[in-house]
C-alpha cells in the first residue's frame, strides 16, 4: 500500500458522503492503483515517476463521485441490500434471545449437566448482543455535502435518529437480558421470592442511560 497514492485518493473523495458505494469505489480504485504502481516499479520506474504516472492515469473522477452522491438521496442512504442484511441480523439476534432459556432447560432437565445450561445461555445472549451492536454500528451516517440549511437539517436528522436508534438498540438488548438474568438467577439459586427486584433495577438502568444521552446531546 503506497501512502502517497492513498493520500491522493482520499483528497479526491474529500467532501463526498461516506456511503457504502463511495467507500467501495474508493477501495476498488486504491487496490487497482496500487497494483499498477507495483507493476511500474517492477518495470523499472522510479517511485516518483511511478507515482506521477499512476495519478495522471486517474483522469477526472469528480463526475463519477457526483453521480454516486446523487444516488444517495435523502432517506435511501443505505441500500435495500444493507436493509435486508440489517433485518436478518436483528432476526437472528432476537431468535438467539428466545432460544437462550431453552439451553438451560435442555442441559438441566434432559442432559442433567447443571453448569452447562447457564453457560450456554450466556454464550447465546452474548452472541445475540454482539450482533445487535454490530448492526447498529455499521449503518452509514449522513454527512452534509455543503454548508446549506438543507444539508444541516439532513445531518441533524441523521444524528438525531441515530441517537434514537442507539437508545432503542440498547433497550432492545437490555430487556431480554434482564428477563434472562431473572430466569437464570431464580432457577439457579431458587430465589423467586426476591429476584423480581431485577426488573426495578432494569427500569433504573434504562432511565440512567437515557439521561446520559440527553446530557451528552
Amino acid at each position, binding site marked *: 500500500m503506497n501512502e502517497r497514492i492513498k493520500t491522493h485518493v482520499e483528497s479526491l473523495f474529500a467532501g463526498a458522503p461516506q456511503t457504502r458505494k463511495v467507500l467501495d469505489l474508493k477501495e*476498488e480504485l486504491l487496490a*487497482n*492503483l496500487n497494483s499498477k504502481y507495483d507493476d511500474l516499479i517492477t518495470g523499472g520506474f522510479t517511485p516518483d515517476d511511478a507515482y506521477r504516472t499512476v495519478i495522471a*492515469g486517474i*483522469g477526472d*473522477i469528480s*463526475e463519477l463521485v457526483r453521480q454516486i452522491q446523487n444516488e444517495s438521496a435523502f432517506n435511501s442512504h443505505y441500500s435495500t441490500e444493507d436493509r435486508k442484511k440489517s433485518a436478518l441480523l436483528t432476526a437472528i439476534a432476537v431468535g438467539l434471545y428466545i432460544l437462550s432459556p431453552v439451553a438451560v432447560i435442555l442441559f438441566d432437565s434432559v442432559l442433567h449437566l447443571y453448569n452447562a445450561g447457564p453457560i450456554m445461555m450466556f454464550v447465546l445472549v452474548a452472541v445475540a448482543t454482539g450482533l445487535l451492536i454490530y448492526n447498529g454500528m455499521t449503518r452509514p451516517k449522513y454527512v452534509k455535502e455543503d454548508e446549506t440549511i438543507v444539508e444541516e437539517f439532513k445531518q441533524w436528522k441523521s444524528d438525531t435518529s441515530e441517537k434514537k436508534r442507539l437508545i432503542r438498540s440498547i433497550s432492545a438488548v437490555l430487556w431480554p437480558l434482564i428477563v434472562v438474568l431473572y430466569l437464570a438467577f431464580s432457577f439457579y439459586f431458587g430465589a423467586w421470592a426476591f429476584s423480581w427486584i431485577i426488573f426495578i433495577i432494569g427500569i433504573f438502568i434504562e432511565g440512567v442511560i437515557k439521561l446520559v444521552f440527553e446530557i451528552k446531546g
Partner: protein
Amino acid sequence: MSITSDLLRGHTDTIILTLLLHKDSYGYEINKSIQEKTGNRYELKEATLYSAFRRLEEAGMIASYWGDETTGARRRYYSITALGRQVYLRNKVDWEETKEIIDQLLKEEAQ
C-alpha cells in the same frame, strides 16, 4: 492520439464486455489487457473505466463481486451476464457494418 481517443471512447462499453467474455476480471487487469492488445497505444483513464463499470452494472450487462485475496487489498471483480453477451454480439455486428460503410465512404475514387 486525441482524435483516436474520441472515436474509441464511444466503444468503451463494448471493449470491456469483450474482455470479460472468457473470464472475470478487475479494473487494473482489464486496463492492462487493453494496453497489451493495442501495443501500448491505448489505455483508459480510471475515471472512464469505473464510469463504464457502473453504467454496465446498472444496465445488467455485468455483475460485480469482491474477491477473497489472501494477501493485500480486496479486489472487485466483474463478470459478464447473459444480457451482456447479447449486447456484445449486437455491438460487434453494428461495428462491422459501420466499419464497412466508413471504409466505402472514405475510399478515394479512382479518376
